[in-house]
Structure formats: C-alpha cells, structure tokens
C-alpha cells in the first residue's frame, strides 16, 4: 500500500513537471492537441461515410455504432494519456538509462509511465467523449434505467483499466524482448479499431478470442449490448454484461504480476 502511495505521488510530481513545461508553449500545445483530436476524428469520419451508404451495419444503427466508438475511444485515450509512455522501457533498457530510474526513491513503474507525459494525447479522449455524448443524444428506443445510466461511465473506466493492463503487460514483456512494442500495439490500437464496430459483423471465433483470451469485449461490447438491449452473439449469461469492472481488476492484477516478474528478472540479469 505504501508503495502504491509513493508511486502515485511520484507519478503526480513528474506529470506536473511535464505539464508545466508543456504549458510554457501554450500555442504549440493547443495546436498539437487539436491535431491529435483531428487525426483520431478521421477514423470516425470513415464510419460516418459508411453510414451514408447504409442505415445499419451488422444490425446496428449509426448512433449505436457511435456509442461503441465513443466508449472504446475514450477508454483507450485515457489509458494512452496515463500510461502510453510505458513502451519507452525497451529503449531505456537498451541504452542503460533504466539504471538511473532504479536509484531514485520512486517506484520505477510510476517513473516510466510519467516520463515525457504528453498532455496533447487528451485530444483522443476529447474526441471520444464528443462522439459518446452525441451518440447518447441520438440513440432512440433505449430504456435509460438507472443501471443503464451507470453502466456507461463504468464501462469507460473499466475499459481504460483493461487497456492500461494491456499497455503494462506489453511493457513488462519488453524486459525479455526489448523491441516487442508492436505486439502490444496490435492489442491496444488494433483492439480499439476492432471494438469500434459491432461484434455481429465479426466471426464468432474472433469474438470468442477477444472475450476469453484478451478480454477486449469487456471494454465496451458486452456492457454496451446491455445498454442497447441486445443479445450478445455468443449467448453468454446476462450477468456477464456487468462483469467489466471485475475483468478489469483481474487484468490489472495480472499486469502487475507480469511487471513485477519482469523487473525482478531485470534486476537479476542486468539486461
């Protein structure tokens, strides 16, 4: 517990410093954040264009797909903003600067995650939120029970935690293979692209894979299906729609274990 507190405090200190530095050049920050927002907006434009030719995709309307898009993008954006720099660890191991982090009184994970904190990545979060809010206003026929209302923020946060766990596992893997960043990218950024679309357009095998192997289906598909009042293509029991926080917690525990194992390995081999 004390270590977690020290980590959060250290993370905050380093992030605050980078934000201060970024804000010294306000205009430059505003431009890059806007650029970031527009770049991520481009892939939503692709979906919008698709719906100008058809009314439904895999049985989902434009507003429904927008809900999927908004939730997964916001989740990934949050994880990317907070932990996206973890993938620099491979480089730090290769050039030996990893050692300088180990002699400071702050957990290494916090130091690497906060290193070069890029506030401009808030662009993706904003873009995701804009799409999400629009989809909530555009959806019709949704029964907004208290549970459904609560499920939206819960799925965004649980989704961010799941993506964060994947980032962490990817970083931990770099202790063994220092150039493995691409594998992790295929799960995070690739997973994001996947979960923007309804599960019904993919093969059952793929949906099974992202439910049981890398649990990306819990980022938004399963809880969103409940909000939209639809059955999931795998026919899983109904409670699974609410399991995202549990799955996220399990993912984080697993990621923590992987990280610790990796760091212990590094400290016994020095490479």
């Amino acid at each position, binding site marked *: 517990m004390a*270590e977690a507190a*020290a980590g959060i405090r*250290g993370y905050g*200190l*380093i992030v605050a*410093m980078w934000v201060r*530095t970024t804000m010294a050049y306000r205009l430059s920050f505003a431009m890059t954040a806007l650029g970031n927002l527009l770049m991520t907006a481009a892939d939503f434009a692709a979906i919008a264009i698709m719906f100008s030719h058809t009314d439904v995709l895999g049985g989902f309307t434009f507003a429904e797909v927008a809900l999927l898009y908004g939730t997964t993008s916001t989740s990934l954006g949050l994880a990317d903003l907070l932990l996206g720099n973890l993938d620099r660890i491979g480089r730090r191991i290769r*050039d*030996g*600067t990893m*050692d*300088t982090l*180990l*002699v*400071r*009184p*702050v*957990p290494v994970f916090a130091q690497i995650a906060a290193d*070069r904190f890029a506030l401009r990545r808030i662009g993706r979060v904003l873009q995701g939120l804009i799409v999400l809010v629009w989809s909530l206003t555009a959806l019709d026929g949704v029964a907004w029970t208290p549970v459904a209302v609560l499920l939206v923020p819960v799925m965004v946060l649980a989704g961010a935690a799941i993506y964060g766990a994947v980032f962490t596992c990817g970083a931990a893997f770099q202790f063994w293979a220092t150039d493995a960043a691409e594998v992790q990218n295929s799960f995070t950024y690739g997973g994001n692209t996947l979960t923007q679309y309804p599960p019904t357009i993919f093969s059952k095998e793929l949906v099974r894979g992202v439910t049981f192997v890398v649990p990306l289906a819990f980022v938004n598909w399963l809880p969103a299906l409940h909000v939209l009042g639809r059955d999931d293509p795998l026919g899983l029991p109904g409670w699974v729609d609410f399991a995202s926080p549990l799955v996220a917690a399990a993912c984080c525990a697993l990621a923590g274990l992987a990280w610790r194992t990796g760091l*212990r390995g590094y*400290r*016994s*081999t*020095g490479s």
Partner: protein
Amino acid sequence: MIEVEDLEKVFVVRRRAGRLRRTKHEVRAVGGISFAVPRGEVVGYIGPNGAGKSTTIKMLTGILTPSSGRLRVVGIDPARERTRLARRIGVVFGQRTTLWWDLPLLDSYRLMRRMYRIPDDRYRANLERCTEQLGLGELLEVPVRQLSLGQRMRGDIAAALLHDPEVLYLDEPTIGLDVLSKAKVREFLRELNADRGTTVLLTTHDLSDIEQLCRRVMVIDHGRLMYDGGLDGLHAVGESERMLVVDLERELPPIDVAGCRTVRVEGPRQWLAFPAGASAAPLVAEVAERWPLVDLSVREPDIEDVIARMYA
C-alpha cells in the same frame, strides 16, 4: 557504512550452439568479495574493463540483486529496500545522466527536491553550495541536452548531493572531461568529504583521480578483490615505475644515477624509470647537479599498467 561479505554475482548467459540448441554458461562477474568502508572514507575502486566494478556498484545501489553473500549499506539491504536506500545514497553514472534530458537543470533539481522530500532550508543551502563550488550559476536555466559533457557531469554531481546522501557512488566521474573540469570536480569532492564526512566510492581509469582523492584503493580483476590498501602499497605490489623525462642541452651518453635506470635515449632527451613509491625530488636534484638540464617532466604510471604488472 558499507559492509560486504562474500558477495557474488553469477550471470547465466545463453549462447547459440548449432541451429536451435542453446547452451547455458555461467559467468561469475563478482566472485566472493568482502570489504568494509567506514564512514568518511574515500575509496578508489579500480580494475580493467569487465572486471566486475560496475556489477559491484549496481549491487551496492540495489539495481542488481546479488546471487549470494551479505551486503549492507548504511545498515540497509540494498536489493530488498531499494527505494528506502535511495534517499540515503547519491549515485553518479559518468556515462549517462540521471537528469531529465529536455529540462533546464533547475527544473530537474526542483523535481529532485520533491521526490526526495528535501526540507526547504536544506535544499536551498545545498543548491547554493553546489552552484557556487561547481560553477553552475549560469547553467541552471539551460536544458541538459545543451550542456557540454563537463557541465553535465557537474550538474549530475550536484543532483546526487541535494538530499545530503551519506554515501556517494561515482562511476567514472571524470571520464571524457577536460583538465579544468576534472580539477573542479576533484576539488569539490575533496571539500565535500572534508566538510560533510560523506563516504565516497569511486571507480575510475584515471590514476590521478585516485592519487588526488583516495587514501585507499581496491583493485578488482576477474571478479576477485586483488588488492585493498593504500596507494603506495599498490605501487609496491605492482612494482610499477614512474618515468622522469629530461631534456639536456645536448646529446649525451645515458645518464647513470643510483635509484633509476635509463630506458631510452633520443637525441638530447632521455627517459629514466624509477620506482613509483620513491620520491622524484632527490633524483631530479642529482640529475640537475651533474647534467646540463634544460627541462623535465614526470610521467605517472597508467592504472592499467600497474594492474597489468600486478598479475603479470
């Protein structure tokens, strides 16, 4: 302050043997060394490349976990309580900076202050002292990446000392520095040790670092401690020689003086070797009295030579 007993570090190296087969090799980087450094001592830790110096330092700072042996630094087991130890030691890596590359020096220091929870008055006093003695005044606002190697090294040393560490490790602190920067760094370390009683362990390839700073030298080779004692004793053990180079007025037959041997003659210049433990003064006096001397210089033996002679 530092207690080391039978410290060992064994790395397992996998090598390719044939197409798919891999064989495991054990490499004993540090093989059972023991020593103790009392508070306030300045110790030079030397040895050829790959002798186990860095591995030892990494174990003493908690970066690496030892394979076996007992290890205590300020009463703390480094591998177990790395972050607690971090508050009480300072580390300077000559080859890589601990500063934030893109930030002005002062921003790095401010962050250090909060990271190490340094009380305001201590921080101000230490920063002022370091700034003055290391000549950092005009550099505080400069991003680290724009500093020269010597400036960066001084910046790194200051960063390692802001939190009043009891032990300071320096891994090649003068590597690649010009004469002026070297002198400044040595002077500063000497004062630090005298004023604060900071215990210093430094690795180096530069024998003059050792001569100017350390009363005690430890020599490591192939992971074993080969020598631990005073610098004079090291020269005696290694039978190393200093070289007196004299320029005479004209070409003359080899100089013949007791206590040295003439190893080379080249026109009016002659090279006289004498034991490193002996003083150069009487030799210079005698040569000056009996030969027409124009100029002279004394060359110190190279650290690598000393060590090479020790184990030849």
